[in-house]
């Protein structure tokens, strides 16, 4: 089912999602965008409706031919003879009663679209709490008439009007239509108003379509279009500009759209590519004119080469894309796989062989024109989406005091912060005093090995049941953020945005804003460039792509990058994490002392480890020392910034009353585990079983054990005891119940963790914890890769594969 969903509904849902957000970006109206989306759906479905009507006419036609003959047979014969003659009659007309289904195909074809729209609208966090016109919350029923819902009634009226005005419907069809309309009124009555607006609009359009006469294009216009369509120059232009289109629009738009939130919707980064795109298209026109004149004999050979290059590029990118779409740095340390490289070569060879050997008559081969035209249309939409997709809400840049008197809550997430290293750093650098009142959970585990999964689980307090990671991410706003908002907290965020829809937080400080405007341009160009080159050259592509990107950023955006990291390998992520922490310290000077929830997600001490213990950084210089020592130093820098921040709260005298969680989303892993914590070593007994040895990274057992060892230390309001190390078996799923506890909120019953502020924690000493490792893109509902962690009696952490869950 997951697979079916992924290949049928999900792509359509994604298109609806982009379409809706693009319309919203342009109109800034939630309702009007729904109507526009409905209109586009209506236009797309119109040919299918026509086709469906044509099928229905065919069915009616054959029935009108068969019925008198059937009647005649029925009058003259009975029993086996009658059945035999009827069967022969059906056979003569190549008909079978089951063929009545044909007339329904066109309409049934729409069902996946309807489900996709339903899924998209009901999962779009933008509607939650959004009031517009008379509707107070688009994610809830409208309650417009004295608490009764108006929209379902309106929808039913249009539904009935559509039934009565459909000329193709016969009496029985109408009766069915009326029954269904009433049935749906009952079932859809409690649906969210956003959904009802979409369907009311759909029904209105379908009502209007009943009045549209069969439209035929005038013959002279048809002729002119045909003449243009068959113009030799036009055909050649299409083929020659095809690679340019793929290179400078399709690929950059794809990279931009998949990373648009991380890029903070800075569409000018993508728009830059329209400069080379326009130039290339102009050059294609020139090339057509020039080559047709001087290389007439070889022109079609060049066309074939051009076509084959473009198709190979498309296929390699969308079938074999290197895992570089998400800019997390992983591909930069992975070697290109041999299988991928060979598959890439196979695709290219197959495409060239097909174009040169299989297609005898190149000039009349219809796909020669259709494919480039389809890519032109796709490009148009990609440009439209890239330009019009905007954040749904611009966050406030000022702090707002709230009336509630609850203590400030701070959740500081240090990416890849491993617990054993943190404890060693705190002890060796005399930071214990700075963390007065903190309890350090040395046996804490992350439930997942990657950030996306970790953030999604600790933010919602649940192990996901959703089918895809995107669905799961979309649940984040419904986690503790929702509870805290309802409690009256102002929500502030420091960090990268991809996991959070815009509009959740009241104030956001992004990674880019603390560096320079187009901080991701070099990485963006880098990824785009890597997609142009064969897989086995990916290392070189990354290197030169980044240099090109840095040059474009300086030349096009006029930003000086001499001293700043511009790519992942230069440490742009930990450096931005450091700058975020510095901004946190700065902002803390003016933050209200109550009613604030502050969430920091700094990508430090995450690799690469290029920042020194005193937060010194020199572009292009890798500090001396082995990996664990450089990790240690970068981690020390991060913790020192945290200490600076805590000091501000102490100075401003709300340290005691505030609540702090300082945590890692997972351990580092690559630096192993510290031997001097041997007694608390984390072991995975079943680490040789799948998917352990099929991980995307070549994890060793020690790596993986370290990866689960996530930092967790917290200080409750009023705690003033000395820095304490606890051996309680905590896990990141405990974050949400603990936060809610601190905010004086009851934890929802379905949460899988417990509040670490509980008095009776010792009752949970033998609790089981869930660890999961697997490919980041693996389906999350899959039960295969769930492990449970437990302690044995000797307090030695031991993880066994207890049972599938």
């Amino acid at each position: 089912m997951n697979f079916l969903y992924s290949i049928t509904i999900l792509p359509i849902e994604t298109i609806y999602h982009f379409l809706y957000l693009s319309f919203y970006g342009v109109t800034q109206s939630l309702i009007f965008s729904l109507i526009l989306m409905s209109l586009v759906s209506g236009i797309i479905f119109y040919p299918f409706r026509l086709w469906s009507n044509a099928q229905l006419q065919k069915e009616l036609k054959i029935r009108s031919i068969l019925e008198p003959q059937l009647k005649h047979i029925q009058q003259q014969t009975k029993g086996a003879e009658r059945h035999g003659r009827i069967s022969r009659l059906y056979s003569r007309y190549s008909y079978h009663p089951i063929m009545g289904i044909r007339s329904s195909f066109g309409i049934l074809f729409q069902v996946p679209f309807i489900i996709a729209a339903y899924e998209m609208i009901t999962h779009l966090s933008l509607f939650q709490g959004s009031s517009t016109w008379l509707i107070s919350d688009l994610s809830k029923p409208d309650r417009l008439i004295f608490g009764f819902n108006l929209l379902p009634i309106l929808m039913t009226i249009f539904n009935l009007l559509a039934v009565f005005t459909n000329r193709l419907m016969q009496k029985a069809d109408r009766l069915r239509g009326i029954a269904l309309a009433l049935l749906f009124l009952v079932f859809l009555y409690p649906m969210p108003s956003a959904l009802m607006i979409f369907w009311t609009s759909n029904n209105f359009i379908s009502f209007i379509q009943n009045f549209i006469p069969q439209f035929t294009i005038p013959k002279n216009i048809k002729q002119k279009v045909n003449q243009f369509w068959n113009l030799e120059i036009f055909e050649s232009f299409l083929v020659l500009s095809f690679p340019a289109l793929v290179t400078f629009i399709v690929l950059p738009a794809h990279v931009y759209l998949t990373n648009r939130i991380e890029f903070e919707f800075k569409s000018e980064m993508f728009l830059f590519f329209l400069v080379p795109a326009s130039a290339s298209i102009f050059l294609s026109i020139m090339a057509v004119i020039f080559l047709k004149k001087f290389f007439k004999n070889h022109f079609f050979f060049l066309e074939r080469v051009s076509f084959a290059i473009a198709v190979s590029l498309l296929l390699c990118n969308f079938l074999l894309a290197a895992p570089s779409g998400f800019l997390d740095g992983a591909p930069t340390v992975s070697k290109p796989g041999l299988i991928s490289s060979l598959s890439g070569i196979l695709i290219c060879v197959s495409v060239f062989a097909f174009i040169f050997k299989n297609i005898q008559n190149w000039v009349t081969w219809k796909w020669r024109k259709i494919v480039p035209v389809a890519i032109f249309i796709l490009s148009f939409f990609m440009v439209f989406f890239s330009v019009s997709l905007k954040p749904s809400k611009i966050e406030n840049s000022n702090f707002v005091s709230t009336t509630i008197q609850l203590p400030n809550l701070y959740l500081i997430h240090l990416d890849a912060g491993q617990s054993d290293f943190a404890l060693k750093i705190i002890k060796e650098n005399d930071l214990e005093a700075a963390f007065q009142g903190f309890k350090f959970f040395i046996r804490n585990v992350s439930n997942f090995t990657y950030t996306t999964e970790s953030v999604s689980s600790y933010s919602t307090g649940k192990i996901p049941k959703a089918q895809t990671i995107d669905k799961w991410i979309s649940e984040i706003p419904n986690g503790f953020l929702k509870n805290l908002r309802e409690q009256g907290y102002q929500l502030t965020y420091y960090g990268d945005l991809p996991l959070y829809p815009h509009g959740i937080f009241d104030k956001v400080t992004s990674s880019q804003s603390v560096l320079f405007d187009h901080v991701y341009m070099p990485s963006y160009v880098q990824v785009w460039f890597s997609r142009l080159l064969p897989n086995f050259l990916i290392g070189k592509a990354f290197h030169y792509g980044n240099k090109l990107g840095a040059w474009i950023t300086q030349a096009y955006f006029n930003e000086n990058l001499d001293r700043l990291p511009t790519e992942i390998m230069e440490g742009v992520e930990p450096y931005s994490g450091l700058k975020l922490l510095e901004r946190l310290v700065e902002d803390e000077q003016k933050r209200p002392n109550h009613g604030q929830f502050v969430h920091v997600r700094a990508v430090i001490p995450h690799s690469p480890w290029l920042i020194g213990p005193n937060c010194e950084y020199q572009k292009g210089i890798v500090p001396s020392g082995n990996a664990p020592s450089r990790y240690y130093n970068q981690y020390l820098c991060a913790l020192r910034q945290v200490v600076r921040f805590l000091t501000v709260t102490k100075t401003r005298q709300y340290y005691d009353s505030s609540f702090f969680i300082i945590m890692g989303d997972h351990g580092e892993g690559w630096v192993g585990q510290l031997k001097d914590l041997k007694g608390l070593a984390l072991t995975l007994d079943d680490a040789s079983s799948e998917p352990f040895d099929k991980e995307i990274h070549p994890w060793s057992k020690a790596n993986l054990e370290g990866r689960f060892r996530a930092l967790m230390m917290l200080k409750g309001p009023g705690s003033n005891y000395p820095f304490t190390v606890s051996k309680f078996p905590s896990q990141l799923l405990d974050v949400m119940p603990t936060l809610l506890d601190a905010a004086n909120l009851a934890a929802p019953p379905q949460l899988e963790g417990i509040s670490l502020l509980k008095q009776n924690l010792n009752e949970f000493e033998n609790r089981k914890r869930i660890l999961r490792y697997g490919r980041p893109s693996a389906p999350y509902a899959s039960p295969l890769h769930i492990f449970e962690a437990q302690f044995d009696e000797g307090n030695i952490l031991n993880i066994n594969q207890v049972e599938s869950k």
Partner: protein
Amino acid sequence: MTIIALLAFFTPSIAHAYIDPGTGNAFAYVLFSLLGAGAHFLKSQFYRISGKGSGKASHFRDQPVAIFSEGKRYGDTFEPIVDALIHRQVNFSYLTCDIDDPILTRDHPLLDSKYIGEGSQAFAVLSSIKSKILIATTPNIGCNGYPIRKPKQVKKMAHVLHAVGSLGTYKKNSLDYYDVVFLSAPFIRSEVQKLEMLRNLPKKKCIEIGLPYFDVLKNKANPNVSTKDTKTILIAPSWGVKNLFKVCGLEFIGQIIENGFEVIIRPHPQSWISDLDTMEAIIELSRKHPSISLDREVNGLHSFQRADLLISEKSGVRFDFALLFEKPVLSIDIPLGETEGLELSDLGSTWDEQAEKRIGRVISPSQVSEISNHINETLSVSAHSLKVLREEAVFNVGHSSERIVDWVLSEIRELS
């Protein structure tokens, strides 16, 4: 009951998806079709198990002889052949692309008729037949760039001509892949041989058959000469930019009426789609003048019967009119235009060019201004000369279908 069934049908998924009335009806059609199909299947199984049979299964692909028809417009060609085959107890299949083909309504144990769909679907079915003999009117089967391939298992593919006259108006290579040509007249043999020589093609078998459709029309036609005082002129032009009205205008019709003739205008069916402006003017003209009548009937026999003379350009209908009804034709010599794509370009001069002078007069468009004189001259052509011409232009008048079956039976014997 329906509502209850639908309620039961939709309830499980209702919370997840939504359907509008149109979609709901589509589901209902699916449901009813499934029920109908299920009942039919169960009945078939019941009769099969009980030994009562469920009627002969169709083996249209395996019949020794197959006829392929593009549609009911070739009914006059194929119906007499079908009748003759049944009369002579030959098993055969009849494949048609037209669901309205009346032959499909016939339920006969020797006839395995089948609607094979339209376009590529039909062509795919046709190419899969295993019959030894295939009879068709369709030109260019098997040619490069044409969608219909010659069925691999067919040993003899025979072409039935369906108009009086030369092969000149056929598209180039029309008969190149046929093995047999049913000759309508002696001059066709020389045309076929000329093209074979030119293209270095294997020799085709040429069988003297005649024209089945001509036999049908001959039975319906009554060539009695009209005795009424006022002569009736039938104007039956072709369509498009080369049609008589576009080239010569409509003024000449007024001249014909002024000279005391009655006029029937029978536009080409395509003109009602493609030449709407001209058709509007014609309707206006017929409203103004009671002596002009407009014929939009599918079958032109009635007008042919009424008329004393036909005015037309270079169309095949002229020969039907002249040879069936023994009445003269005034041909307007409007060149066919680009003939490069036609067999005419390889054949050079054809029988039609000489014959059109024997069925009446041929005038140029510029001579249309004096059309009444030309009509009077043309009316003097004798019926006897037309009878003589018919003997030259059509073999076996009245017996062509029997000749076809004779050949079919001898071929079956030879091939088995």
